[in-house]
């Protein structure tokens, strides 16, 4: 357990802010685009970790909140002319509320049954949105170019989106650290280790799980809105990609589930690997197969991920890495 005044508590947040500031200071568009994707995945993986790493519920449908929240935020900007920060916030809130409702049903399931249900939810959401006319049905929606004028042109709008992404991801990492070191987080860890024993110890498990699910769904909703704003359009195929959910799982497992720094390390490492493979003529069609193999190797040989491995080999790092 770390207190807020200890250095280890702030390390992951500081890394995110420093990273964002460095790219901002550099001012190059190409560097920004690359960092945008990486930081987005750090945020998504950190939010998944609240459910997967702390609570022990394996979700194959985390991306559904990115899609639904993104769609909602995009709709508010494209149709209701909301500003980006407000629409992004609304996207997050809608995602969290949907998670709260879904949780009533799916959080009663455990283990493999929960995992399967989350896949079902993702596919159901995709079908629903594809047939939902206000959201543009299967062709989706796009932003009128004039929308960018209120942010001082498209170039400035992209930098603003980047800054918001850094802020949101830093918040996701901060919330993750706060939960991990709180009484509430201890309840989640107890649920992960033994849900029945946790209940008997006095943890209100249904409530704790629902709050964890909502917190983990909030950030993808915000991030989705930012991402689709940057793209300028949104369509069902982009919003509900099952393979992204699986890649997020790989990132969290690779970095170390249940640690604050793990999703950060995992997302950067996985994206680095993916970037290399996509450009290499040998691997370009195989990156998902390799992701699967990596997941298998992690589960078999380093279940604690990169952070756990580092902690094991360098006991002195234990105080800093969590």
């Amino acid at each position, binding site marked *: 357990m770390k207190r807020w005044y200890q250095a280890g508590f702030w390390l992951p947040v500081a890394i995110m802010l420093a990273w964002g500031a460095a790219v901002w200071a550099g001012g190059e568009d190409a560097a920004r685009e690359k960092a945008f994707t990486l930081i987005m995945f750090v945020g998504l993986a950190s939010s998944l970790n609240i459910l997967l790493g702390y609570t022990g519920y394996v979700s194959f449908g985390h991306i559904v909140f990115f899609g639904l929240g993104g769609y909602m935020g995009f709709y508010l900007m494209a149709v209701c002319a909301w500003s980006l920060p407000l629409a992004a916030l609304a996207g997050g809130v809608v995602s969290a509320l949907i998670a709260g409702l879904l949780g009533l049903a799916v959080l009663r399931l455990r283990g493999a049954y929960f995992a399967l249900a989350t896949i079902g939810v993702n596919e159901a959401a995709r079908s629903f949105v594809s047939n939902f006319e206000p959201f543009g049905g299967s062709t989706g929606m796009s932003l009128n170019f004039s929308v960018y004028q209120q942010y001082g042109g498209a170039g400035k709008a992209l930098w603003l989106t980047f800054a918001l992404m850094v802020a949101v991801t830093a918040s996701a990492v901060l919330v993750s650290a706060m939960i991990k070191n709180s009484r509430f987080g201890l309840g989640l860890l107890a649920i992960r280790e033994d849900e*029945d024993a946790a209940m008997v*110890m006095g943890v209100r*498990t249904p409530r704790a799980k629902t709050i964890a699910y909502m917190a983990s769904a909030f950030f993808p909703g915000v991030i989705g809105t930012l991402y689709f704003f940057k793209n300028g359009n949104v369509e069902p195929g982009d919003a509900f990609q099952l393979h992204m959910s699986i890649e997020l799982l790989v990132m969290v497992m690779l970095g170390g589930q249940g640690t604050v720094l793990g999703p950060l390390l995992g997302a950067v490492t996985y994206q680095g690997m993916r970037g290399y493979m996509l450009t290499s003529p040998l691997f370009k069609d195989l990156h998902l197969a390799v992701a699967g193999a990596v997941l298998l190797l992690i589960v078999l040989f380093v279940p604690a991920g990169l952070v756990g491995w580092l902690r094991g080999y360098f006991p002195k790092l234990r105080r800093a890495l969590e």
Partner: protein
Amino acid sequence: MMLEVKAVGKRFGGLQALKGVTFMLAEGEILGLIGPNGAGKTTLFNTINGVFRPDTGRIIFRGEDLTGQPPWEAAKRGMARTYQVVRPLNELSVLENVIAGACFGRHALSVRKAAVVAAEVLEMLGLSKQTCQPAGSLNVAEKKRLELARGLAARPYLLLLDEVLAGLNPSEISGMVDIILKIRDSGITILMIEHVMQAVMKVSDRLIVLDDGELIAEGRPSEITNNPVVVRAYLGDPRDAERLMAGGRA
């Protein structure tokens, strides 16, 4: 009265696991719950603390009706339990396990205050050296003490102990018996399931005997050992053997 169990019945499909069990437990008492395997002892525990909802009857804890309440409500009102098959939170440290017990127990302490309570309890149970170890790495005797520590850290009024002595060697048993007596002296009421007869006879003020879901006897340890109904439940009826030898039907 600490606990009143009134005509509690519980059925699982075709099995009537508990049949109208009624007993009372006074404050400061150690009540031993004994009975052959499959008698329904653990089911009775699970019904008392809310893991199962009884089909009939009522559970009154410190004057308050807890029937049908979820287990965390019992925990918040001051009921803690240990498991026969230990259930430590394996990946968490010994200290974190006990902090969790204190955090979600009767006082709902903050993590910081819970850490103070946890350190005290671990000291009392002789686990101070292992605080930073993962709970999963303890040996059986230590895990049993950890379970007890987690329960005690909740500062309960009533502690339900499910076979805390099982699997311990004689010297560990006598150590644990001392701890149990110390817990009682600190003012905590205890209901314990136990198979190690000598120990349960020694520590219990009173015993109740469960057989096939029914309460068949109740009394002081000396009364129970000589009760023919109890002997029969455990060993069968000696007259059955005589009848068999004589060629009749049992």
